[in-house]
């Protein structure tokens, strides 16, 4: 019984001793992310929305520029503002896509039972959350950057015919593009935390969309001082204030750096709560 004949299955592992490592968990999460069609399509949607909205807004604005001669060859600051507006306009829609994606990255595992395989391979669990957050953050940030820079070139193609131009090396232009990309990445990771907490795709998506869309709108409508005071501290408000001109977001009570801190706090809160529940509950 102990002799292994050639026809019997060879079960042993020849590769040198290898062990569980955080680098390995990172690679695993990267493989998981790129081998699902839903992820790939979500990121294609982010690029398409950002470029498409840039084209639409630039075309609309350009016809307005023609009608308003004072903008032609206007101050450089105003010209840069037009580019920022066009390049980041799609982010308001793309944030909903990455929010859904962030939830699905984890709720999809609970929904299909994949989580049991994942947490058997990584029984300490927390490295999974950290690796998922890291991969999601980096990929979303890079896709956001490619989208907004692409949107800048789309805007350039439209505006150049109207003598409106801005340079990508201008901090007033590239800082908002970086901010918009960062915002998308933070929304995705925030949603990952929510998805980990509720473990359900429908519930998680409902919560993050309500949090990004419904709550800010309701707070603006509530005729009370506390509601107006609270509004700038929402993730959707502070996050979009990092890059969007005041005309779009309405309020501007915090500096850009404060906006960044508030956004980071939301993401930190979401991930911390998710981590506590992840360790405490049965997987």
């Amino acid at each position, binding site marked *: 019984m102990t002799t292994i004949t050639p026809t019997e299955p060879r079960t042993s592992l020849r590769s040198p001793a290898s062990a569980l490592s955080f680098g390995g968990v990172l690679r*695993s999460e990267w493989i998981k992310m790129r081998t699902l069609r839903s992820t790939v399509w979500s990121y294609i949607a982010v690029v398409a929305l950002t470029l498409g909205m840039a084209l639409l807004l630039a075309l609309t604005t350009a016809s307005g520029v023609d009608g308003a001669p004072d903008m032609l060859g206007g101050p450089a600051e105003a010209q840069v503002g037009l580019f920022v507006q066009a390049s980041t306009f799609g982010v308001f829609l793309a944030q909903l896509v990455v929010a859904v994606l962030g939830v699905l990255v984890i709720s999809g595992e609970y929904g*299909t039972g994949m989580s049991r395989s994942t947490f058997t391979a990584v029984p300490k669990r927390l490295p999974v959350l950290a690796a998922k957050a890291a991969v999601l953050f980096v990929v979303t940030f890079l896709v956001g950057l490619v989208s907004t820079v692409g949107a800048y070139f789309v805007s350039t193609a439209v505006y150049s015919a109207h003598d409106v131009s801005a340079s990508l090396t201008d901090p007033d232009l590239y800082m908002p593009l970086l901010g918009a990309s960062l915002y998308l990445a933070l929304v995705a990771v925030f949603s990952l935390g929510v998805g980990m907490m509720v473990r359900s795709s429908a519930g998680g998506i409902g919560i993050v969309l309500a949090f990004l869309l419904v709550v800010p709108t309701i707070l603006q409508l509530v005729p009370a001082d506390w509601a107006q005071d609270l509004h700038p501290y929402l993730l959707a408000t502070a996050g979009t204030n990092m890059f969007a001109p005041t005309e779009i977001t309405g309020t501007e009570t915090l500096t850009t750096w404060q906006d960044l801190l508030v956004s980071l706090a939301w993401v930190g809160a979401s991930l911390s709560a998710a981590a506590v529940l992840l360790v405490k509950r049965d997987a």
Partner: protein
Amino acid sequence: MCPCRGIRNFDVMITAEGLTKRFGAKTAVDDISFTVRPGQVTGFLGPNGAGKSTTMRMIVGLDRPSEGGVTVNGKAYAQHRAPLREVGALLDAKAVHTGRTAENHLLAMAATHGFGKQRVREVIELTGLESVARKRVGGFSLGMGQRLGLAAAMLGDPATLLLDEPVNGLDPEGVLWVRQFVRHLAAEGRTVFLSSHLMSEMAMTADHLIVLGKGRIITDAPVADVIAGGTRSRVHVRSPHASQLAELLAGPDITVMRAESGVLEVTGLEASGIGDLAAQHSLAIHELTPKNASLEEAYMALTADAVEYRTEALR
């Protein structure tokens, strides 16, 4: 451990002590202690809801014990440097994202421990998944899902295998394959802990049995002992004088059951004794068959009081 040829020492045991799991008011696993030893197949039997799966989930740390604990090779599963090299678990054939291909699923699992692509190819061959490796798991049959689960369990060349209903959904050829595979793994010195509701399968596969009922261990013994001790053997008697014979047979340690008209199931008396008795009274006997207790009967006898959801016999 022999470092020279990569041959591993599989002296690994699963040891549970006072293991308890409560879900709210319900106690799924109630203070159980057992040891699963290497080099043999240990069967884990019990009716639905007995706590088998919960116990297996606690071994790999998916469920946290309410009290007590379980160790693999002296350490909690999560404390090992390379958990997948300690335990390979097939807890549920559907523990895979349906949108991913089998190969990519295995690559993602292997990546956590740094097992290479070569190892993924090996386990795909080992489980006969070559033709479907690049198909998405959502379209897999249950049998294919079981093979993929086994492939994932084998990734780390583990010293211990935990298999929850591994033959579920397999065709006869697949069942035979799993049986041989599991015997082979145990012969290599590995610890194999296998649950199944197919008692006949256990009789052919397992060396040792742990029977669970209502979260408690009912028996923990070699398979042969369970079969021998579970029920007394009985004799199947067919006779045109069944009623007369039944009256004659009646005695303190003898049970006579009428299965159908003209047929008796006798427990407590040897076939020869029944034959002699019939001859003394000149009663014709058409059939006299001794029946050995099957594992199934032994199991039913053992768990009769511990069945959570009993089906009332049709009348």
